[in-house]
């Protein structure tokens, strides 16, 4: 009796182990990709646009035969902008949904938490938005890639714009987490390198991410009387910020204003004419900046399907899906995370913002931001246009691999 019981328990165990050990993929099952974006709170619109970009790419790929004959399928999770939530979501996507790869991340704080555990999950991650240089720098690893530009690239470009304006005394308003602080740090260092005479004020303002009232911070910065202000506030916060700054006369002062991620179409369409003319707006991707076939097709298809122009977040997510298609085909496997990650190393692909390459050595795509001044309204798209548009060569504004501190 006793031994019989033990026997059944053992065989049940063996069966259970056996079941969980067999790969659950049949050849005709879809290949899943797992996305982690902010889907709630003040930046939820960014997650919405990213999802639209992913849906568009997946439908295009599935309509033209899929990946290795299999359909692509999306599983998306809300990071809520918190590292712990995103890590839990990543574990669910990898172990429960058995995705082939992860993409997304909207927050530098989330990236700093999730990137170090990618080697445990053994699946590739393509960051499409989060910009902390650490993700492809001091925290880099074999599984982490970034298709969007990072703070270091963006600030190198913006420092050259800032130097051109002739403004000498600079300060910043940015969200009180990694992104805001690192934007200021990298901007200051890059600007000092071009022009050692500039003064970086101690009167900086770092409101909490998701803060509703920016009035004290705006007043504080105006009281410091700077010549130039670097503003790295983003998302719903940026919409609130610009409205409140308008009311306080912030933009009527004689100051150079640079928004580090201001030309996000999510923000521009919410603000409309309230975005003041003449301020510098940077973005990872401006939909009118590229005259290649991919971009023409992407912008037309996106507008046709969603009725609005694509934002940089939509473009990054769209391109990342195509990067996975190429990498999975190159690796010849949708299950082996090591092979897919290795296939991404040094891989190039044609994206809407040109031919991009994940650099060997730090896995950062060498891409530059698009920077311009806020111009007249584009009546068709309902947002301000960018004038005096500049494109930056990714090769020139990226740190060298040695400078990133990444050792792969």
């Amino acid at each position, binding site marked *: 009796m006793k031994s019989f019981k033990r026997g059944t328990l053992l065989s049940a165990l063996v069966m259970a182990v056996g079941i*969980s050990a067999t790969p659950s993929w049949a050849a005709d099952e879809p290949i899943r990709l797992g996305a982690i974006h902010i*889907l709630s709170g003040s930046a939820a619109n960014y997650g919405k646009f990213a999802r639209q970009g992913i849906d568009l790419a997946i439908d295009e790929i599935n309509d033209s035969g899929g990946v290795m004959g299999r359909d692509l399928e999306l599983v998306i999770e809300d990071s809520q902008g*918190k590292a*712990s939530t995103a890590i*839990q979501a990543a574990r*669910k996507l990898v*172990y429960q949904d058995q995705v082939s790869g992860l993409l997304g991340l909207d927050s530098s704080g989330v990236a*700093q938490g999730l990137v*170090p555990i990618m080697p445990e999950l053994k699946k590739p991650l393509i960051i499409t938005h989060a910009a902390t240089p650490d993700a492809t720098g001091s925290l880099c690893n074999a599984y982490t890639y970034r298709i969007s530009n990072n703070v270091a690239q963006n600030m190198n470009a913006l420092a050259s714009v800032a130097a051109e304006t002739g403004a000498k005394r600079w300060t910043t308003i940015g969200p009180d987490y990694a992104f805001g602080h690192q934007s200021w740090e990298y901007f200051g260092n890059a600007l000092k390198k071009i022009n050692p005479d500039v003064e970086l004020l101690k009167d900086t303002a770092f409101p909490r991410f998701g803060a509703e009232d920016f009035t004290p911070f705006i007043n504080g910065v105006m009281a410091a009387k700077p010549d130039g202000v670097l503003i790295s506030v983003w998302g719903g916060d940026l919409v609130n910020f610009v409205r409140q700054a308008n009311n306080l006369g912030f933009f009527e002062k004689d100051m150079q204003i640079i928004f580090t991620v201001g030309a996000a179409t999510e923000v521009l369409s919410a603000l409309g004419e309230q975005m003041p003319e003449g301020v510098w707006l940077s973005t990872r991707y401006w939909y009118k900046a590229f005259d290649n076939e991919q971009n023409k097709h992407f912008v037309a298809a996106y507008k046709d399907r969603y009725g609005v122009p694509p934002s940089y977040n939509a473009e990054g997510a769209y391109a990342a899906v195509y990067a996975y298609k190429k990498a999975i085909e190159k690796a010849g496997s949708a299950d082996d995370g090591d092979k897919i990650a290795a296939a991404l190393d040094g891989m190039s692909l044609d994206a809407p913002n040109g031919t991009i390459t994940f650099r060997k050595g730090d896995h950062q795509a060498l891409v530059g931001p698009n920077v311009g001044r806020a111009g007249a309204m584009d009546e068709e798209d309902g947002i301000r246009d960018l004038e005096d548009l500049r494109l930056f060569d990714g090769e020139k504004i990226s740190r060298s691999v040695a400078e990133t501190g990444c050792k792969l």
Partner: protein
Amino acid sequence: MKNAILMAVFVVVLAGLVLLPWFTPYFYIFIATEILIMGLFAASFNLIFGYTGMLSFGHAAFFGIGSYATAMLLLHLQWPLVYCLIASVVFGALLALVIGFLSVRLNEVYFAMLTLAFGMMVFSIAHQWRSVTNGSDGIAGFTVGEFGLGLPLTLGNPAVYYHVVLVIVVLASALLYLIGRSSFGMILQAIRQNAERVSFCGLNVRAYRLAAFTIGGGFAGLAGGLMAPFLRVASPEMLHWSTSAEPVLMSILGGTGYFLGPFVGSAIFILLETWITSITHAWMLVLGIVLALMVMFFRRGVLGTFLDWWQERQR
């Protein structure tokens, strides 16, 4: 007979927990780890609430400081985990001693408000002292090395970490249970029922309440210390009042009258959260409805109501 059946059920559940990694999908190991840690957190809270009758809204402060202690020791000094956990217990208990010293003199809503205020003070420090706590990003990027005590454990493996958590939580809970059963624990329960009478017996009620608060803080610190290597981040949200509310909800869900109530509450809370959030993002709405119904119709919690009904039927 009744006790024998309960004991048997308990042993089967425990055996099931030990064997879990061999028969569930990988994902549920993470869920189980979280349930155990949050269960310990809620049980440490229940020593203060269910036993001593003090409703604290600042319990996350001790959980959070335990979490930061382990995360920062792992990041800066790479201590073996077991020593980090001991430090977490010490920090949790010390902070509870200080906050408790200032709070236990007050009763009911005043006590609740004071603990809430102190809890949010600790949160603000963690959130704003960027040079030490890394502000709202929290402490991340640490690696979990060896366990210590010469045990060759690969803590990076989720199944191994789950077993480590299981052993520590079971040992800590056994200790907590014995504390509740001891004459000290009896006095705590007497304080809940009638503090004046205990005081008339010549006992220093305030000292007992402070002792309960400090012990609860130490165990919460341990739970926090286990959480940091699991989540791979110690963030200010762990100190926020909404985290303080979780053990309150879990204790009420499971039942404050039984020692295992908070663990049952933790399991229900986290499983519901996992299942409902995969259907809708409005999980808090569902939780609110469940809680309202619980408080209206099952004041003794899921475990409490079941055991009461079962014992009634046996009689």
